[in-house]
């Protein structure tokens, strides 16, 4: 009888899980947040104008804080070392979606002391810097196109390498 403990290490398995599952969260305030291109970056809905969004980011290495509208108008709330409400909202939602460990590791913050977005920002000594709003916004628009593509019939056998997981106990 072969048991789990006899299994070879994860590196010699075809279905080793690489990406931890992400948690469902409300998307109204922060429709998009990702860890890519060396930044925690996202898109935050404006509280006052439904047609406007802010693009916020924190550099993974230098912790530079950036926030502006998608038309590159700087965010009035961001000044000096203080994160604006958009950045705070983005970090909160990133923690909900990816978990504090993953976000903490990405920003180089000791993960075991961190459980909320506030904890993370408290441990970051960032200064205001510019954010490549156009690049991040383009990534968000590309992200949205995935919901616009038609669904398809016919097998995609390669998805056998990507089982759906995350069932409750």
């Amino acid at each position, binding site marked *: 009888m072969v*048991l789990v403990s006899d299994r070879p290490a994860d590196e010699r398995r075809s279905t080793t899980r690489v990406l931890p599952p992400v948690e*469902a969260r409300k998307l109204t305030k922060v429709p998009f947040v990702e860890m890519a291109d060396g930044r925690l970056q996202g898109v935050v809905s404006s509280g006052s104008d439904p047609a406007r969004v802010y693009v916020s980011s924190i550099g993974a290495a230098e912790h530079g804080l950036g926030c502006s509208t998608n038309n590159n108008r700087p965010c009035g709330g961001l000044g000096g070392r203080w994160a604006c409400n958009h950045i705070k909202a983005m970090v909160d939602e990133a923690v909900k979606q990816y978990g504090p460990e993953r976000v903490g590791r990405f920003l180089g913050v000791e993960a075991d002391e961190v459980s909320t977005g506030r904890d993370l920002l408290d441990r970051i000594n960032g200064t205001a810097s510019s954010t490549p709003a156009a690049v991040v916004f383009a990534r968000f628009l590309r992200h949205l196109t995935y919901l616009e593509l038609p669904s398809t019939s016919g097998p995609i056998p390669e998805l056998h390498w990507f089982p759906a997981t995350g069932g409750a106990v």
Partner: protein
Amino acid sequence: MLATQLAALTETREGLTETLAVVDGFDDALVHGLSRLGAAQSAALAALASAVAVTPLGDRVNEAVEKISAGSIGDEHLAALAAARSALLGAVHDELITGLDTALGRTRTAWTEGATPAEAIRSPRGAARAWLAELAITGWRGVEHELVSGAAQAIDGLLADPASRRLAVLLDGLAAELRASSPVATAELVPIRRWADLWTRAVLLAQDSWTPAATAETVTGRLLILGVDLHEHPTAVQAEVHAVLETPGGPTRLVRTAVSATKVDTVVGPAVWKLFTAYPVLIAALAERRSVEITDMPLLDGGDLYWIDGQAVAGAPAEPFATARVQLAEAAAPATQPLDRHPARIGELVLVEGYQLTKGDGYVAFAIGDDAIVVDTDRLPAAGPLTWNLVVASTACIGLLRWDAGTWTLQPLALQAIVKKKPAEAHTADWAQGPTDPKVVKAAARAGDAVAVLRERAGRLLRK
């Protein structure tokens, strides 16, 4: 599945260890990168070439290894290496399927090329080949954000054309893992076999000569659904339905039919079912556990029905466990498409009951006679009602036999159980029209409708 069948299934098959050792050697070379081969990598490539030397691939692989060793790496050389690795794993697949068919007494249709070839793919795949070549030359250990970002351009060109969706979805899945692991040089885990699998398949799909599966025949008859296997990565979801197909005057056979959609990573759990609104008949049949009458539906040459919802009508309620008990043993299984042959593709439907539960540290197994099969409890999707607790309380299971790294496991698709002294039953697709568990309904309401929120945003921002 009987005790004798399980005992036969778990018997060691000859040649697997040796074959996989050659594969491992090549996979290690991909970790290192093909641009500057050391002694170990050169030996691994030579071993790969010699393993396929007597096959029709022999000369091309040999030439590829010579050129790469001399530092000249062309697309055709990488294609030859991918073909060689794929052939070895195809042989492992065949050996495992032969063993499985013998153990279970399963009849399998012999492979025949489909009569009506599929339309060739029109979208150019050069950008995909270039990115894959860049990965192989660099090696996994050298992968950083910038190299991963290069995938987007290749993927964008492929997503628009449904015929090349397969390659796009695969590249997206691989790129997401590489991005999350970047820089790979400092990553805790390099999934060596997995990434080599995905790279190899992508190289084959990216060849201009590759064409989608052909249509073998069109079929009219009744589908009795047995279970649903759900697949998901950040930007794709696929529901693969396993069913028995009854055709007038024809043999009863096992078929699959798959529908898939692109999505974003924040659409998870039961929300993924909302992406299949283009298939109302299929989704209703899954949620309501009904049979389906199909008319003139194309059956592809690997045993996959090409689902056309307008050619299907929901039929009478059909109990999957009854279908499995009465018809599964007699139904003929399809042969696998030659290029799809890989151990990870194996998912053979079985009915298991009359087992004793064996629990250990983090695993649960079903013991029948002297042997036991481990239940793959990782493969229980958040989109359905199957849970670890239900597995532990179960008395019967419809599931897929899977093989990975030397071990057979059972992935449950449906369970019958005794919960609070009452019989209970759950299937992966029970929530296809929305969750039925009040707790899950509440949680979904709290999270809001992700698809609707993002579509609203897309409506405002994309069309400006």
